[in-house]
């Protein structure tokens, strides 16, 4: 990010920006940056906190009025809302999953499809309330994503890729992201503060979809398809959740 600021400013456009990793910004020395004490992935602090987001935005834009010289690196003083341990409640997913119905699907796929069925009304509610969904990376519906991921587990590189405009690796990546998006959108449909860690631990530790993605790691890292292999190795399971592969 700091390098982009340097190149854009060098083309004659004034820049200001947000720093999430102060150490790297200090080394890159962009013209004007505001370091914020927030989690990676949340440069404006917290979702659904418009006043706080505006405060961060104003602080970043205000650097444009400073006379210099370069570099200017200020620190934003406030933690993100919900970021202190006192703000956390012991969140649990409000949706309980039914036992798998007897179907012809292999058991893990049956359980994932059952979860999706239970979560669907909540995901639809979240989409209606927010006026948007982040689903779409896989370019197939969520049931098809689940079936494709399971096919990668059972059929390997010969799994049928329903996303005709994506490579198998891109479809694998998109389907795994859409699964997480679908589950999180559903789980956060009801009002109430929940941390990213609680959501991640729930998805990876308590859902069959998480179990499916974990099961794909050892299988797909040896895939004959290099794109599928690459996703399995570095784009499937966050580092913070790799410990689950040891269980």
């Amino acid at each position, binding site marked *: *990010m700091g390098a982009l600021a340097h190149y854009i400013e060098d*083309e004659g456009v004034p820049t200001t*920006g947000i720093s999430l990793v102060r150490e790297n910004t200090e080394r890159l020395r962009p013209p004007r940056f505001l370091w914020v004490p927030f989690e990676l*992935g949340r440069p404006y602090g917290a979702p659904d906190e418009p006043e706080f987001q505006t405060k961060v935005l104003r602080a970043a834009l205000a650097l444009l009025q400073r006379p210099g010289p370069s570099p200017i690196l200020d620190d934003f003083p406030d933690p993100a809302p919900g970021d202190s341990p006192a703000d956390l409640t012991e969140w649990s997913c409000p949706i309980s999953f039914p036992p798998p119905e007897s179907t012809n699907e292999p058991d893990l796929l049956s359980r994932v499809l059952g979860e999706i069925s239970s979560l669907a009304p909540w995901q639809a509610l979240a989409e209606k309330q*927010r006026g948007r969904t982040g689903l779409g990376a896989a370019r197939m519906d969520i049931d098809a994503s689940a079936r494709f991921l399971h096919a990668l587990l059972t059929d390997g590189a010969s799994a049928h890729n329903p996303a005709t405009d994506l490579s198998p690796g891109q479809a694998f990546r998109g389907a795994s992201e859409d699964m997480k998006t679908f589950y999180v959108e559903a789980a956060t449909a009801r009002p109430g503060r929940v941390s990213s860690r609680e959501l991640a631990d729930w998805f990876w530790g308590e859902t069959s979809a998480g179990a499916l993605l974990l099961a794909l790691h050892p299988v797909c890292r040896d895939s004959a398809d290099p794109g599928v292999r690459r996703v399995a190795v570095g784009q499937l399971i966050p580092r913070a959740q790799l410990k689950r592969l040891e269980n």
Partner: protein
Amino acid sequence: MVKLDDLSPGSVRHLLDKDCAEFETAPFVAGPPLRERRVAIVTTAGLHRRDDRNFDVSDLSYRVIPGDVRLDDLVMTQASVNFDRTGFQQDVNVVLPLDRLREMQMAGEIGSIANYHYAFNGAGQLPAAFEATGREVGRLLKEDGVNAALLVPV
């Protein structure tokens, strides 16, 4: 903090071991008061319109996000899995503060919002690899009359 303390040792190493380019120049362009500025966002969150191409790993290209984009037309295909996406899944503005910018424009705090914003995939490459496309975006911003580029990582 960015919570380096909360990250796994592997994540901390990955973040801090980046080969950050050292620049010999220190450009610093002045501009008018904020209420007269035209603002664009440049993000590395791998955002794009739903029917635009997904970002791939090691992708140095950028996607154009129209200034009047509807937030329900945005998806994220950034290559990394090692940052929180749950905030974005609940509220785009935690990553791309377009609603906040629009409010500031309505209130007269900024002059205008650019016709186009730009999104990169900020993973899988060293910072210096973005020089060609970064400069290209700089020229496009200039053509659009932008005099406040807001750079937002993820």
